[in-house]
């Protein structure tokens, strides 16, 4: 392990916290390796650096790791995900004008009620020949899939009733300000920055759409994982330790101060602190409201890469790339997530290790004890806003039922 070094690519987002803190607070050094963080502004650049060895690992939107493995729009390169960097932490923000038309209140509303109001506005805008337009951070992002899941679920058909385009996170607030889009779905602190600039109102936290939605992952080339298996396991341990520290109540201030630095997020420290502590300011000048689980980390084995999460993302890829379901593709997507590496890395550490690698997603209304091979594991409610559950073993039936 001596002399091992990982270069990790990232985008300036709050959920890049774990690799940054693992570096800054010595969790990497304690595992005997060095970290170097490589900051970029687009996911395309993060991906290219990973594929061509400029970086050894990357902070990445989960669907992009799957799309890259499957070779969507490019020759396939197999990626592996041994660790989930966090759940949720994103929001849907409307332009001030759309917020007024929909009648957003100053608390987080009900996704169904907001959806019904949005449907009225969207229909009127289609009739007027100026359909609403939303920006998401990437075609292959959980933001795109969460937004579309919600829209379709409230009767607003993506690509027909509303347009969905791409705006990279650092430019999402600008797009809202310029009137290029009527809404954005992006990670923090970029929603808060839009609110602070007076150009947007936060309508929903993505956690309201899927209470335990998988967000960024640690992506590594499969060949690099095989060649540097021991070092990758040390990296997983360091990130897990960083996650444990991140959720300690006394740690938030320091974490926010580190993340705010110019070499990391280069963003206001108080907005970052609010995101970390699940408090969000919905309207300009408003009091931040507390929404538990806005950004979910560490607890309930949140960093465990469930294959069923990858399977859900694949189901949405089939749905929104308008392609046919393919059992081989589904299997390949599921295999991107590597619970085996996570378990091997944390064996003997006391961290709860789920016994299963896959679960019913969205099936829990109440916290429940779950089978584990190590430690005690409780899983909290993981509901989708429409109450549907996803069975990873029957993706086709699930897809057939979706609107």
């Amino acid at each position, binding site marked *: 392990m001596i002399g091992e070094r990982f270069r990790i690519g990232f985008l300036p987002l709050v959920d890049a916290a774990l690799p940054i803190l693992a570096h800054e607070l010595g969790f990497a050094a304690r595992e005997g390796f060095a970290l170097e963080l490589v900051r*970029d*502004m*687009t*996911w*395309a*650049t993060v991906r*290219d*650096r990973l*594929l*061509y*060895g*400029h970086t050894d690992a990357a902070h990445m939107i989960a669907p992009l790791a799957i799309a890259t493995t499957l070779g*969507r*729009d*490019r*020759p396939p*390169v197999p990626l592996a995900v041994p660790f989930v960097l966090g759940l949720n932490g994103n929001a849907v923000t409307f332009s001030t004008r759309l917020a007024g038309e929909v009648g957003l209140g100053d608390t987080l509303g009900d996704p169904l009620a907001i959806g019904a109001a949005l449907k009225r506005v969207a229909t009127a805008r289609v009739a007027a020949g100026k359909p609403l337009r939303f920006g998401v*951070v*990437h*075609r292959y992002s959980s933001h795109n899939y969460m937004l579309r899941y919600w829209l379709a679920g409230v009767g607003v058909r993506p690509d027909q009733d509303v347009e969905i*385009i*791409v*705006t*990279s996170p*650092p*430019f999402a607030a600008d797009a809202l300000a310029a009137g290029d889009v009527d809404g954005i779905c992006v990670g923090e602190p970029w929603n808060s920055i839009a609110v602070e600039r007076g150009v947007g109102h936060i309508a929903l936290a993505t956690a309201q759409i899927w209470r335990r939605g998988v967000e960024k992952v640690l992506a590594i080339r499969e060949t690099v994982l095989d060649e540097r298996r021991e070092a990758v396991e040390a990296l997983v341990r360091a990130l897990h330790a960083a996650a444990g520290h991140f959720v300690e109540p006394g740690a938030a201030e320091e974490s926010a101060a580190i993340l705010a630095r110019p070499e990391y997020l280069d963003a206001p420290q108080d907005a970052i602190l609010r995101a970390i502590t699940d408090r969000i300011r919905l309207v300009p000048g408003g009091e931040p409201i507390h929404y538990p689980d806005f950004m979910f980390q560490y607890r309930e084995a949140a960093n465990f890469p469930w294959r069923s999460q990858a399977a859900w993302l694949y189901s949405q890829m089939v749905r929104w790339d308008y392609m046919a379901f393919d059992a081989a593709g589904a299997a390949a997507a599921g295999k991107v997530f590597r619970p085996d590496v996570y378990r091997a890395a944390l064996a003997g550490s006391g961290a709860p290790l789920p016994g299963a690698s896959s679960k019913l997603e969205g099936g829990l209304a109440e916290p429940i004890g779950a089978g584990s091979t190590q430690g005690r594991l409780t899983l909290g409610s993981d509901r989708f806003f429409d109450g549907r559950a996803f069975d990873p073993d029957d993706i086709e039936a699930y897809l057939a039922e979706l609107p």
Partner: protein
Amino acid sequence: MRIAIIDTSTTRAAIISDGLREAGLDDLILIDPAGPLVAQVEAAKPEVVLINLENPSRDLLEDFFAMSRALARPIAMFVDQSDAEATGAAIDAGVSAYVVDGLSKQRIKPVIDLAVRRFQAFSRLQRELDDARNALAERAVIDKAKAILMKRRQIDEPAAYALLRGQAMRTNRRISEIAEAIVTSEALMGDME
């Protein structure tokens, strides 16, 4: 073969297009970085797109390529695994490329190679400019320090320079560092006698 060049640096874009033109590739479209990107690319209908790796519009552009019905065939990035080395060199140089699917490798490779060389040349040029700028700044600081020494110690210029040089050699530092220290301390304590 129509090539579109998208670059946040208009100087580098000009350097690349000059190179391509010299090589006989003159069906070039320079995309204006201040204008609407997608509309320009759509109108240009390029077969090859060269773009700087760190261009902030790449996610948007890739989404357009994936969605586009306007182009006859989908555009994919130039990442044939057999060419990993060449593509790696492009990424190292800071250039990324998209090509119409099915375009022959023999036709694309010279374009990419040329873009890589031009990107490298541009980086070299920029480094040289930076060095020149730094050298100028250093000269100015050394001149200032010499003037301070001449005035304070009542010595001539060669003697002032010899003092600076001697101190630099004894302390194993650069002359400009010594000079900077003198200028800084003069600014802070020059009026103390």
